[in-house]
């Protein structure tokens, strides 16, 4: 059941789509096609519970038309990749572009900073991903081993939510009417486990997962199993804690959400729309000067590697935060033009909907202290290992989320805590970061260490 990328369409297919749009009346157009195959297997209590296979493909087209008041555009997508489907899509998108409002700042695919053929070839050499390294049998064996080790970890493990292994690959084609076209493949494999400790009203569940570019680079089933089971057991018999101000240490797994909030707030479109608490923060110190954060499109461990973005713009490494100072808003070509900023190559594009803005690999550079040393320095506080809910206001930065973790007293983990909230404002939270750990950990396309923040409010009993 290996994937069959070689039989999938090549970049000429995307070129044909652009040609069809031009024939149908577009002044400019660009097209994206994605083909994806994948397998996943779930095991529970030692037997296979489900197998799934996906075979997905689609194409998306963006077309610009000239009007008397400037350029207007629309986007459309379909999973019907036949010649008839292609022409229908081209006609549909032109009809829609004609009713769309012209925008004097619209940026059609002309004069874009595309990578050269030589760069495309070099990238292909270095990122030659056409096999995720697993067969269904190997993935099943890994999932079974992972679950078995997790269940055997302790007598307190009472139930299994199962272990999942999945692998797959996709092929992305892009072409634009200014003559650029390219294709690349991506593969990944992932393994996860979720187990339950305790019983009745005292049950606690936790999980661990890892995803990598190739099955051989995954953390071992034992590592993942042990993490999931250890976390579930450590959560047993939680209490609440007193309401009040405290220092919160986000372990890497929960710290990723802070990075997510930052990226939403420096999204160029959010800035244009005044929907960000960092609208006026460019070149300002928003973090302590020890904080450095990169958007790196070419990292050996990153699952977000890319040579060009969703508009065919060459990607580059963006130092987003340099010694605490905000250096860039992430932009596609349109927002870069409107903001009068350099392009960051951050156009993100799926098959449906409009072009968005997104990061590649995000790396929050580690500090010098281990998490243990940070706890010692802080003395009293809360180590947050779980966050739930969506209580973040991107316009104001107001922050209030459900949390769970461990009470820290005199630098030691004392007991598990659950059913509390932590609240503050992201602008202040960013400024009040007191420690950045040395425990840099990768989660797909994000790498982050433990982060400690002073002055959050806990609500508990």
């Amino acid at each position, binding site marked *: 059941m290996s994937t069959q990328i070689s039989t999938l369409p090549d970049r000429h297919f995307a070129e044909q789509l652009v040609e069809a749009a031009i024939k149908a009346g577009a002044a400019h157009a660009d097209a994206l096609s994605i083909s994806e195959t994948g*397998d996943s297997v779930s095991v*529970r209590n030692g*037997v296979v*519970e*489900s*197998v*799934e*296979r*996906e*075979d*997905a493909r*689609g194409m*998306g087209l963006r077309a610009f038309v000239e009007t008397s008041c400037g350029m*207007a555009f*629309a986007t*459309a*997508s*379909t*999973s*019907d990749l036949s010649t008839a489907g292609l022409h229908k899509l081209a006609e*549909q998108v032109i009809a*829609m572009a004609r*009713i*769309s*409002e012209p*925008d004097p700042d619209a940026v059609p695919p002309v004069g874009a900073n595309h990578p050269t053929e030589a760069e495309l070839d070099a990238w292909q050499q270095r990122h030659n991903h056409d096999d995720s390294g697993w067969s269904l049998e190997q993935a099943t064996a890994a999932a079974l081993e992972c679950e078995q080790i997790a269940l055997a970890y302790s007598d307190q493990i009472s*139930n299994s*939510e199962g272990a999942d292994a999945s692998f797959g690959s996709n092929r992305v084609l892009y072409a634009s009417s200014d003559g650029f076209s390219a294709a690349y493949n991506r593969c990944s494999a992932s393994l996860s486990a979720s187990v*339950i400790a305790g019983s009745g009203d005292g*049950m*606690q*569940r936790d999980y661990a997962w890892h995803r990598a570019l190739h099955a051989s680079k995954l953390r071992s089933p034992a590592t993942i199993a042990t993490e999931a089971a250890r976390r579930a057991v450590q959560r047993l018999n939680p209490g609440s804690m007193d*309401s*009040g*101000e405290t220092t919160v240490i986000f372990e890497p797994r929960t710290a990723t959400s802070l990075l997510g909030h930052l990226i939403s707030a420096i999204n160029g479109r959010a800035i*244009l*729309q*005044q*929907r960000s608490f960092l609208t006026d923060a460019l070149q300002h110190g928003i973090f302590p000067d020890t904080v450095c954060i990169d958007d790196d499109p070419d990292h050996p461990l990153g699952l977000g590697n890319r040579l060009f973005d969703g508009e065919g713009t060459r990607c580059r490494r963006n130092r987003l935060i340099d010694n605490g100072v905000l250096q860039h808003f992430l932009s596609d070509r349109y927002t870069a033009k409107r903001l009068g900023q350099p392009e960051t190559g951050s156009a993100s594009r799926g098959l*449906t*909907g*409009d072009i968005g803005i997104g990061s590649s690999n995000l790396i929050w550079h580690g500090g010098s202290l281990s998490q243990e040393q940070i706890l010692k320095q802080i003395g009293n506080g809360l180590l947050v290992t*779980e966050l*739930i*809910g*969506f*209580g973040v*206001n991107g*316009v104001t930065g*107001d922050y*209030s*989320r*459900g949390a769970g973790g461990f009470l820290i007293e005199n630098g030691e983990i004392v007991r598990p805590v659950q*059913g509390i*909230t932590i*609240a503050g*404002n992201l602008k202040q939270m960013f400024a009040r970061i007191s420690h950045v750990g040395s425990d840099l950990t990768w989660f797909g396309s994000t790498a982050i260490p433990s982060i400690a923040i002073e002055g959050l409010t806990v*609500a*508990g*009993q």
Partner: protein
Amino acid sequence: MLPANADDGDLYLEYSSSESLALEEGRVKHVSASTHQGIGARVIKGEASGHAYTDSLEADALMQAARSARSIAGHGGASSPVHIHAASTAPRLYQAVNPAANIDFSERKAMLEKLDKLARDLDPRVRQVFANISSSFSDIHIVRMDGAHIHDARPLVRLNISVVVEENGKRETGSAGGGGRFSIERLLSGDEPAHMVHEAVRLATLNLSAHQAPAGSMPVVLGPGWPGILLHEAIGHGLEGDFNRKGSSVFADKMGKQVAARGITVVDDGTIAERRGSLTVDDEGTQSNRTVLIEDGILTGYLLDRQNARLMGMQPTGNGRRESYAHPVLPRMTNTFMLAGNDSPDDILASLDRGIYAVNFGGGQVDITSGKFVFTTSEAYYVENGVIQYPVKGATLIGSGHEVLQKVSMIGNDLALDPGVGTCGKGGQSVPVGVGLPTIRIDQLIVGGTEA
């Protein structure tokens, strides 16, 4: 194609199309459409299931999908051919017509421009207006292992308004929306679109004057309608069949036991005509139902798809749902709400000595194993001696699903359903849902503000 030793299986064919027009900065500049077609094949044996799907309708891809799905059942011989026949159909709860069929883009565009102008005219502090009309139409054919063929055609529309207001350099946002399983013409007719604009502007300007929310344990009064998200998070997910069969839900051993205060009855009802969460049949072809989950405080029902129902020795409840042919079936909610009680909403608010009156919410989430759930206010007030004092900033409320309904001490006579805005996520799949609630008083919940 199906192995003879399978317990169940089906083919799910879907053709769906969607359209979206969005206005920002005074211009309708995001116009998009998408079309998806494909087939999902499922084979179920005992606790195991195989699922494969393809976007390609070519014979090779279909056979590959069928082989993948049936691999779960082992090496049973092939089943004998079945006669494909139309199953008796449930009465349709919505019209089988593409909601965008009878309205062209220019009418939708004109409406968005009108709403943008209305928002800016309502209040000079309005700086940004986002308005979006989206519609989708899914044509679905389900062919079960026994040859039964079930058809459903599902329209879905939604209008969303969101504004940013600014005063003295301080910005806030407010939003409102609504929709259901009907046509775009109906969505845009009447006063409802203008009402949504008023709501979005009112919420945004209200939040400009919001104080910090309190932090700690206190009584909370929830207003009617969308605050029913409490039920969705606190108990709905915990009563989904898969979690209970596997014993991973905190409600797994509570059937027949008291899990809520007396007087509380909660139902999941997929049969309400034209509502966002309603389904004529679920994604396994089971006619949708009104399932009583809690009756007078006692746990009486789970939400079941065919596989979990069979394994638990129960009847499917019409809650087997999938986001599309590309996703497996899971037991999911439809429209989940609490029936009305006898208390007047005014009396309930007046009973609050010191606490929070929460009228509107953003999203929520639950850990079904520990029962801990959260939901976050988007319109809430601090109340003292039964009188509203001031609006408070968005705060997350946290509680335990198996405890919170035991702490409900008053139930209003004003049951309302939400305006048609709910989307539920589970296992990476999103499906439209509804919720509803009368005004209720919860004696104790943790309010996650910043004023400790």
